[in-house]
């Protein structure tokens, strides 16, 4: 049953991604941007313009372009179906390769940030829930409202000013490695893992040092919604009939706490998934502040350069990963809570 559920979810997800890809495909071509003149310059000759248009494949009918992109027209060369996301118009490199380099950085950033944010926010949220309306709860509540509504790029800059310029604790916001360090040989693409594999703890340390501020910035932004959610779920669980009944039945304190904790966990898992998916596209600004070279920055570059294949690739990858994360967390949710049916 679980396998069938996963299969169905993946099927639905694929349809969703496909419709999204097609929607994006038409959307960017319907908007009044002119990528050709962006590449050849505004004052180029008509011939040069036509030549560039041909090179980019924009002279063909829209449906042919779509067919090519999807990979259903063998005469046009490989497309989505063959596992190709096309070639970047700016660099001439396959989009898949470029995303393959950028994505691990974003995932590392998000994973560190979520790990730290959860470590801090979950206990804080639960503490606040112990005495709803108490002084601690009110303070935590105001904080979570504040942190949940902040311009992350500005806080990033502020952190840079304080921790890099004034205190000198952090490295300059110029990527995940200082320009003088040679990166470890890529194995997984994740630079922290690769440093470990290459047996270079100093590089690992340096990477972590560079991640310090961007992660801190993201933790700050994430802590708002996570604390709020944990607090709310915990208050609800502690106030639930079955926790009260467990006390009525004289269960030991620890056991009552475990009852409540499990009940509070279940809905939190789903929300964290949604947040993770949201931040995949939301890390753009933080990556930009710290020049991390992740997927977000790749998106900015592609959009500003009207690099259509790259734009399509980014959207596709982000959506696909979000859907997979949702699926994984829904499965975890079902393990925690037997009421969730696979249906």
């Amino acid at each position, binding site marked *: 049953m679980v396998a069938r559920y996963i299969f169905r979810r993946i099927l639905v997800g694929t349809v969703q991604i496909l419709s999204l890809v097609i929607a994006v495909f038409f959307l960017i071509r319907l908007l009044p941007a002119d990528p050709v003149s962006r590449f050849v310059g505004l004052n180029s000759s008509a011939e040069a313009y036509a030549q560039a248009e041909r090179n980019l494949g924009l002279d063909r009918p829209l449906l042919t372009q779509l067919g090519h992109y999807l990979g259903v027209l063998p005469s046009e060369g490989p497309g989505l179906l063959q596992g190709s996301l096309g070639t970047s118009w700016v660099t001439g490199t396959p989009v898949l390769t470029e995303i393959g380099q950028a994505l691990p950085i974003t995932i590392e950033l998000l994973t560190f940030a979520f790990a730290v944010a959860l470590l801090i926010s979950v206990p804080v949220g639960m503490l606040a829930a112990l005495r709803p*309306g108490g002084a601690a709860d009110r303070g935590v509540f105001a904080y979570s409202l504040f942190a949940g509504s902040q311009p992350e790029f500005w806080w990033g800059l502020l952190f840079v000013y304080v921790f890099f310029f004034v205190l000198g604790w952090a490295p300059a916001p110029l990527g995940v490695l200082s320009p003088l360090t040679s990166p470890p040989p890529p194995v997984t693409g994740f630079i922290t893992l690769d440093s470990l594999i290459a047996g270079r703890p100093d590089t690992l340390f340096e990477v972590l040092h560079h991640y310090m501020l961007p992660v801190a910035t993201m933790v700050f932004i994430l802590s708002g919604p996570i604390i709020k959610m944990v607090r709310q779920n915990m208050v609800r669980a502690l106030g639930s009939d079955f926790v009260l009944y467990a006390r009525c*039945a*004289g269960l030991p304190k620890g056991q009552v706490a475990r009852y409540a904790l499990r009940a509070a966990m279940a809905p939190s898992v789903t929300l964290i998934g949604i947040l993770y998916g949201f931040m995949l596209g939301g890390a753009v600004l933080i990556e930009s502040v710290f020049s991390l070279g992740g997927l977000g920055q790749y998106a900015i570059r592609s959009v500003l350069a009207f690099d259509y294949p790259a734009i399509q690739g980014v959207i596709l990858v982000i959506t696909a990963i979000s859907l997979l994360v949702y699926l994984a967390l829904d499965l975890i949710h079902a393990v925690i809570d037997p009421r969730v049916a696979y249906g």
Partner: protein
Amino acid sequence: MKADVAATQRTVLSVHNLRVRYDTPSGAVTPLRDFSLSIGEREVVGLIGDAGSGKSTAALAMMGLVRPPGRLISGQVLFGGQDLMEMDEDQLRALRGKDIGIIVQNPRSALNPMLRIGRQIGNVYRAHSDASAAAARDRAIEMLRLVGINDPERRVAAYAHELSGGMAQRALIAMALSSEPRLLIADEPTSGLDVTIQAQFLDQMWDSVQQTGSAILLISQDLGIIANYCDRVAVLHDGRIVEDRPARDFFAAPEHPYSRDILGLQRAAASGVARTSEPVAPGEPLVEVTALAKAFPIHGSDKVVQALQSVDLSVGPGETLGLVGESGSGKTTVGRCLLRLEEPTSGDITYRGAPISGIPKEALRAFRRKIQIVFQDPYDSLNPRWTIRRVLQEPLDLHTRLGKAEKTARIRDLLEMVGLDQALIDDKPRGLGASAMQRLNIARAIAVDPEFIVLDEPTSVLAPQAVTGLIALLRKLQKELGLSYLFISHDLTTVRFLCHRVAVMYLGQIVEVGRVGQVFEDPQHPYARALLSAHLFPDPTRRRVDQDVPESLSGEIPSPVDLPRGCYLAGRCPFAVDRCRSEAQPLVALEDGRQVRCWRVIEGDLEGAA
């Protein structure tokens, strides 16, 4: 177990001058001001009072618990000579669940949704003994069997959401009795259960407690339950016990004015104003239903829920037809189909001979004037943003051409007719009580002089004393306006008081229909018999627990998706034979004018069987 002996028995638990307060942002609420009550060994004490009067607060307080943000302010709770208010948390914990058990009114929400019930029962048992996990599991199975759950070895693995309400309540009582407490507090244990299930459950609880030797504090709003199971009655009103007497004395001659209020309907019914003796109004039927069927398709499946099947009924001018049955019997769907709020799958509905079913929506709107409905939940039936004036003006705007002043006059008339203060006209209904809101709903229903009103459980959410007033109002309006009613209810006491004829429904079919006197005094169909015998009439002189209850229905109601081939009751009926299981049953008239859907009754097989 006689009530008069109770006083000489040893006391299990006594509460003295208890005061509980909730500090809320909008001010302090003190549901218990000066609450005192004692319960003797093996005694069954009933605690009654309005909804929100603090009964549940009292139940929790007796275990030294309050729901936050409440606080126990003062008083004593003495158990075995010790004051719970002075115990520390560990002592209390050891006491709760071991010496005092509790069951509550929403059993499914009181069970942990994430743990199997066997595990939960085991956890409670282990909290109060040094049993091993395996022993706890055995105990859980043993307890589930004790409380009458079939196949307990399999049921221990169930989760709360997989259990029906009755099952979950049994699981809860299994948990509460696992350590053989000296006192069991049962806080409205059967609210939300169907009558036949309720009787099964209460009988089972009574038996189980006889075996474990616990005393019971039975909290209920239902006087029938109190009269049938309790030795002594305590009345909670205004934060204190205003009356505390043996059950027989209480029902014979209540002393406190509030108690008399509560007993109002029962006394009115007993004093002979019930409809049982009145003749059925003659003449052409006003509304006639033939072969009505309704099936709801199940989303994402080709199966259907058979809500109604071949329902025939008619209501004459000035007549009240009662429609009784348990939840899921389809009685509400009948009412909704009559107004075409639900489109019937097949069958005919006529009004004064003219068809209602199958006519286009435009033509239907004119009928709306003649046929109205009052719903179960008075609060839900009123647009929360509208004033009373606007609510009552809506039907006038739709169906009359009155001027503004005439409308206002009519609205004032209507308010007067249903006994509401005319000064409220520009208020929002939000501040009204449930009973006043229901009067407003009735006023809206009669605003454009209908002839026929469907009353869909109009009293089920009202407090007992409010029910009396509302039934009286309905009878008054019927007399003054010549209305016909279809009165849908599961409360047999009100049906008896308001209806001329009654139809008993089970799983979408009418199984018996006849005059109220006939059906109530001598039910024929096995289901009608079970329903009536399960109904707890508030009369402590004929307690259910003092008599041999005739063999009744067993098991649970089958799903309306997979209905049995033969008689729908066959799986639960004590009289079922093979023919019942294979043959669908038609509704056949008996000599005395009533109709019954059971071949054994028609052939006279069951005479004297009950």
